[in-house]
């Protein structure tokens, strides 16, 4: 065999090995978490809030963290959606017309996307201090919304960009205004993609810990108002793992299983949704 063919086969083997490492590490992460967490997961974890002495190994569950995380992520995603949808539509040619503003916006969103969540947390905290406020559900929601904004907007914008120009022109030629075209034609056509953007951002929001560490606080109760501190799943994992008692640490494993299942569910829903709704799109 020639040298160059030997080189090719060596690299091919290396490439397959690399791909196996990538996929293998995903399976290893999911496998280890399920293997350690599933045996210690029980119904009390899901249905009870943390009782007194929970961190000393006493009874109770993490319902407060599950509900808290859902409040935070749903609130954050809703707020981010209100902002993102406007920005994503505005980045279309008809509105911003490929101007400087649109390329600057894209660049800022990309930079924001790359900004570490701990920086969002630190920034949120400085703003809280400025207004002399304490960590609360509302502050957590706002920080998560800012964190989700770039992901959601860029995902949505990519989808809106793929809506064929001809389709819009047909709508204009029938006398529709820009806004009507955007809402009735573009939004409908891009719907599965918009939902994907929302779900991806939701997943990022529900899993993020560093940004809400100082802004949402932590408590054993389910929050009853926007100004209460709230618990969250990622922080529940972090704090439970940080305790010295093995039986409390095991609850961190179980909490991680719950968080992982939520993420898996989001990932699968995203795929199913986009498959289901792609059928109704005019190609």
């Amino acid at each position, binding site marked *: 065999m020639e040298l*160059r063919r030997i*080189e*090719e086969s060596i*690299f*091919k083997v290396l*490439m397959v090995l690399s*791909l196996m*490492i*990538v996929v293998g*590490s*995903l399976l290893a*992460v999911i496998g*280890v*978490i399920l293997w350690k967490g599933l045996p210690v997961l029980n119904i009390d974890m899901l249905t009870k809030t943390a009782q007194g002495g929970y961190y000393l190994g006493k009874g109770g569950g993490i319902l407060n963290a599950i509900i808290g995380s859902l409040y935070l992520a749903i609130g954050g995603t809703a707020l981010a959606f209100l*902002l*993102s949808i*406007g*920005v994503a*539509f*505005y*980045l279309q040619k008809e*509105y911003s017309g490929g101007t400087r*503003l649109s390329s600057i*916006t894209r660049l*800022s969103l990309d*930079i924001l996307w*790359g*900004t*570490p*969540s*701990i*920086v969002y*947390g*630190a*920034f949120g*905290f*400085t*703003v809280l201090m400025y207004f002399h406020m304490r960590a609360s559900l509302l502050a957590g929601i706002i920080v998560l919304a*800012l964190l989700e*904004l*770039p992901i959601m*907007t860029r995902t949505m914008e990519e989808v809106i960009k793929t809506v064929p120009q001809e389709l819009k022109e047909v709508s204009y030629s029938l006398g529709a205004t820009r806004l009507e075209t955007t809402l009735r034609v573009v939004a409908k056509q891009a719907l599965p993609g918009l939902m994907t953007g929302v779900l991806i951002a939701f997943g*990022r929001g*529900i899993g*993020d*810990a*560093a940004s809400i560490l*100082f802004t949402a606080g932590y408590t054993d109760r389910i929050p009853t108002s926007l100004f209460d501190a709230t618990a969250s799943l*990622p922080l529940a994992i*972090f704090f439970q*793992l940080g305790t010295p008692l093995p039986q409390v640490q095991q609850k*961190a*494993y179980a909490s*991680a299983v719950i*968080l992982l299942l939520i*993420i*898996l569910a*989001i*990932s699968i829903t995203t*795929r199913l949704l986009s498959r289901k709704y792609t059928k109704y799109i005019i190609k």
Partner: protein
Amino acid sequence: MLAATVFACLLFFLMLVGLYIRASPILSIVPITDLLFSSVWGPSDGKFGFLPFIMGTLWVTGLATIIAVPISLLSSIYLSEYAGNRLRNAVKPLIDLLAGIPSVVYGLWGVLAVVPFIKNTLAPALGVETIGGYGILAGGIVLSIMVFPIIISVTGEVLRSVSQDMREVSLSLGATKWQTIKHVVLRKARPGIFAAIVLGFSRAFGETMAVLMVVGNVAKVPTSVFDPAYPLPALIANTFGEMMSIPLYDSAILLAALMLLIVVLIFNILARMVLIKIERGVI
């Protein structure tokens, strides 16, 4: 829509300015060279040397990049050049999922799998001392898995942007597939691959929770991969609660956040500029 777009543009500057204002008290008292190059960290004595944290960040991030780059690049080349559609479509959701797993879950996995492996298997085999397996190596391994998805997906896009004609010309001259990839595709894609690596590095640079959980958190300049380290994001996350009681402490921590933000800003602008040029067909 315009208001939301302008807000998205300005958010980054707001963060930069907000953090700078809060960090300025320490910048006006302690000279910047002391802050960056002194390794004495004693907030209660007014000593704020960030060197151990900066070096900790560089060690962990550097190691993660060294592990992640070859594996991600080889996987990405295989996926875009060799793999059939079926394999590509099967692997893509897995890589998306890898990107969607929350960082606390990665951290927990590190604690459950990587740390014990280093403690019980690797360190005894090599005859080195570790503090229970926690340290730069554990942090680097966990982080490298977290940056796989970003390097793989950006590289994939860059490789797809290389025109098919160039490949065909090379193949028609009798080059093997691998020769074509090595001499034509990769040469053409070099700036884009560089951008992908920079984006991966900058993602790893600001990662907080996962690293914090496995890296040992000892404020000393590390000298080997088996040493513990204390990266900047971990410092911010760990000291936020207590910093209000010591003068200048909060200012120092927000300076750390500002440093992260500036580094990430530089890297992201660099990488995005390259990618934008590729998208426009300039490179």
